């Protein structure tokens, strides 16, 4: 379908990343030679076990946690499910009130919805037009029955970074568990679970150049939590299932690389990101930036364009070899506009023309310039077809 000759440019790193070749190399032996079950007594098993524990140690250190606070599993979705359901059911006797932000990832939103059906009370925090949580609304919302607060560290669509240190402090003072979904931020911006008073944290491998199928939940020692899966008692009894050692080894290697290169990498990405934002806003009339201009992920840019629709933008870009993404209603299976854009006050038609561009380790300046130029053309052509105001281009 897509012209094979054209150069393809990947600008959807927030959806998933390629595996870094260094990560791939680190994983390989655990597929081929050291393939043992980490629960087995023999040398095959014990070698796998050692790799698993080394990986745990690497990730714990990076988060400033201890090893036995890291629970490996298969995805950020699973981690978020475990955090919310696990804490909710283990702490039922203390209360049934759970607070989340309105711009959580769907896996938190939908888990919360399900918990509501089980009799828990779910409340959503106030946010401003950039998506930043209002701390006063949090203070006011907390009551005796509150058992958990869950706020995404950096939003997956608009890239806004939340003040999780402050949120953590408020929760700790009130003796309430605080969970943060750091799937988009871990490896990109510094996290210290101690300083930030975080009780539970979700991290994912395939958003940071590790393989798919590996993720973890940090659970601070002493937090009361129930497992979702019962079985052989793996992962301190919190996640029974044969452990996916190769993927976890890859995850840990990816964390190591991100941690070592974070400063340099984020500086480079911020430069590229700001070049993109400036370029688009200058070159394309009727274009707007979504999310906070500064408090945003180094690799995220999100725009909306007047009079055009997002899915059409993405499809046109794809025919020029550029991969980006949209949260427009037309691209969602339910035909509803993004709950994140609606929550930051967008009218439905504004949420219609959104485009997310997420940069990564292999993004070059030329890619950004090519995108800006191509995007200007695409928007112009779509506006020509659009029945709405056309004197903008």
């Amino acid at each position, binding site marked *: 379908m897509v012209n094979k000759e054209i150069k393809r440019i990947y600008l959807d790193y927030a959806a998933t990343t390629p595996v870094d070749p260094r990560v791939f190399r680190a994983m390989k032996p655990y597929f081929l030679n050291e393939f043992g079950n980490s629960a087995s007594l023999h040398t095959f098993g014990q070698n796998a076990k050692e790799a698993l524990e080394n990986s745990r140690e690497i990730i714990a250190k990076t988060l400033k946690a201890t090893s036995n606070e890291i629970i490996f599993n298969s995805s950020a979705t699973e981690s978020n499910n475990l955090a919310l359901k696990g804490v909710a059911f283990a702490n039922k006797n203390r209360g049934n009130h759970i607070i989340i932000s309105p711009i959580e990832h769907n896996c938190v939103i939908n888990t919360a919805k399900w918990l509501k059906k089980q009799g828990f009370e779910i409340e959503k925090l106030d946010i401003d037009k950039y998506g930043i949580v209002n701390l006063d609304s949090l203070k006011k919302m907390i009551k005796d029955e509150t058992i958990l607060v869950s706020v995404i560290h950096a939003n997956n669509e608009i890239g806004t970074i939340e003040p999780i240190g402050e949120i953590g402090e408020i929760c700790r003072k009130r003796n309430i568990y605080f969970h943060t979904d750091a799937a988009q931020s871990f490896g990109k911006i510094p996290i210290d679970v101690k300083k930030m008073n975080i009780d539970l944290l979700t991290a994912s491998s395939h958003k940071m150049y590790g393989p798919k199928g590996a993720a973890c939940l940090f659970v601070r020692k002493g937090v009361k939590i129930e497992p979702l899966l019962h079985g052989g008692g793996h992962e301190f009894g919190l996640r029974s299932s044969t452990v996916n050692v190769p993927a976890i080894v890859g995850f840990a290697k990816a964390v190591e690389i991100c941690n070592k290169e974070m400063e340099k990498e984020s500086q480079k990405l911020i430069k590229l990101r700001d070049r993109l934002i400036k370029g688009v806003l200058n070159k394309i009339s009727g274009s707007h930036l979504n999310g906070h201009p500064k408090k945003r992920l180094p690799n995220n840019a999100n725009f909306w364009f007047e009079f055009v629709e997002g899915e059409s933008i993405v499809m046109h870009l794809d*025919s020029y070899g550029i991969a980006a993404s949209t949260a427009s209603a037309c691209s969602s*299976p339910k035909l509803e506009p993004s709950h994140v854009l609606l929550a930051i006050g967008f009218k439905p038609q504004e949420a219609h023309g959104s485009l997310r561009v997420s940069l990564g380790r292999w993004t070059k300046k030329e890619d950004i310039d090519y995108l800006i130029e191509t995007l200007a053309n695409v928007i112009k052509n779509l506006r020509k077809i659009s*029945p709405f*105001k056309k004197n903008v281009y």
Partner: protein
Amino acid sequence: MYTKKVIEHFRNPHNQGKIKNPDGIGKVGNIVCGDVMWLYIKVRKKKNGEDIISNIKFETFGCTAAIATSSVITDLAKGKSIKEALKINKTKIVESLGGLPPVKIHCSVLAADALDEAIYDYLSKNKKNIPEELKKRHQKIMHEKKTIEEKYKDWIEAEEEMHKNN
């Protein structure tokens, strides 16, 4: 997700744009997804007295499928008599595109509605007999239209303002 045909029409849509002094306009929108389609027709009388659609153009704000169905319906309707054109329905549109993903079937309904509305507009402006079936469809579409026009009020006003000035 989309067939080759859909992508072809999407990338190079046929008959895009507007017709000056059209004989009929169909303006429709889908409340759920928010897509909007405007269809313009020009009608000419043939020697045997039959009305035929001599020219047709579209303007669409919407997804890939909305643009592709707009394009394909102009192909299907061009040169057809009003009577034949009224037979173009979503099944025909979907067929001529080699299929649409299930969530995108409603985009073809939008195109069929737009054509119905354009024809209705032409018939009623010219005080012609309107088939009962078309009247019914028109009523249903009008209901949706109100909601959609409310949604895009600012944009539609800006557009109309611009036309007045031109």
